[in-house]
């Protein structure tokens, strides 16, 4: 199976998640080995996903947990 770049882009998200069928996966890998543009799209997408998953990227407001549990405690104590 020979894929063009557009077909690879269609599968790139599933490829990252490991949900591409094996036969298709081989064709994607074959394409990536020879297409530096698609390889760069894959590498940059993966890199961006690592960065956004880092806990420093999205911080929770300071004191959020304390305020939340204080409010829950009030409701628990009130039987609500």
């Amino acid at each position, binding site marked *: 199976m020979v894929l063009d*770049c*557009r077909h690879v*882009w*269609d599968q*790139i*998200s*599933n490829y*990252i*998640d490991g*949900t591409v069928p094996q036969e298709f996966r081989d064709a994607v890998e074959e394409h990536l080995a020879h297409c*530096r*543009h698609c*390889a*760069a*799209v894959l*590498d*940059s*997408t993966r*890199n*961006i*996903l*690592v*960065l*956004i*998953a*880092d806990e*420093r*990227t*999205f911080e*929770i*407001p300071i004191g*959020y*947990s304390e*305020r*939340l*549990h204080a*409010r*829950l*405690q009030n*409701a*628990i104590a009130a*039987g*609500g």
Partner: protein
Amino acid sequence: MELIARILAGERELFHQLVRPYEKAVYMAAYAILQNEHDAEDAAQEAMLKALKSLPNFRAEAKFSTWLISIAINEARGRLRHARVLKIESLDAPAVDEEGTPVPAVISDWREVPSEALERRELRELLRAAIAGLPEIYRETILLRDVQQFSIAETAAALGVREGVVKTRLLRARLMLQKILAPQLRSKRSGLFGLFRSKAGGSWF
């Protein structure tokens, strides 16, 4: 499950322990929709209170985390709808096109931006702004799946859509982010991370 049974049997204080592992995810789910820290925190608290009240209705076949997150999503969506009714003009927001694969930024090579670079506020803001700029359905999908690391099945359950829908939205969201961010991260690399490079003594650029 045992914890839930004990809470329902009267040990209500254990509710703190039950929800503690998910409190960040609840906040992030609300934030994905409301895009404002104060509103997200308020919605997260309200969702937790609703979960406490509704715990007797929780069905064991569901996963507690996705049940809790779906309460937060509904709470946030309800607030957003209310805000939109107050601001009538935003009812005319353009429909989101869910067809086709976005064209990514086609670049010839990629040099990895290391996680250590997140020490720079500029990088964190760049990433947050890119996600904030996504249409809501993509923003909430990527925040649950790629930020909170929910599985595809959990993301689908929390959002109340099929797994295939999550996969399609993920593809679009990830390529949209790549298209926005890859050129910016490349062009700002030296300016944004230059200080960090010298500090770390690395040679990634």
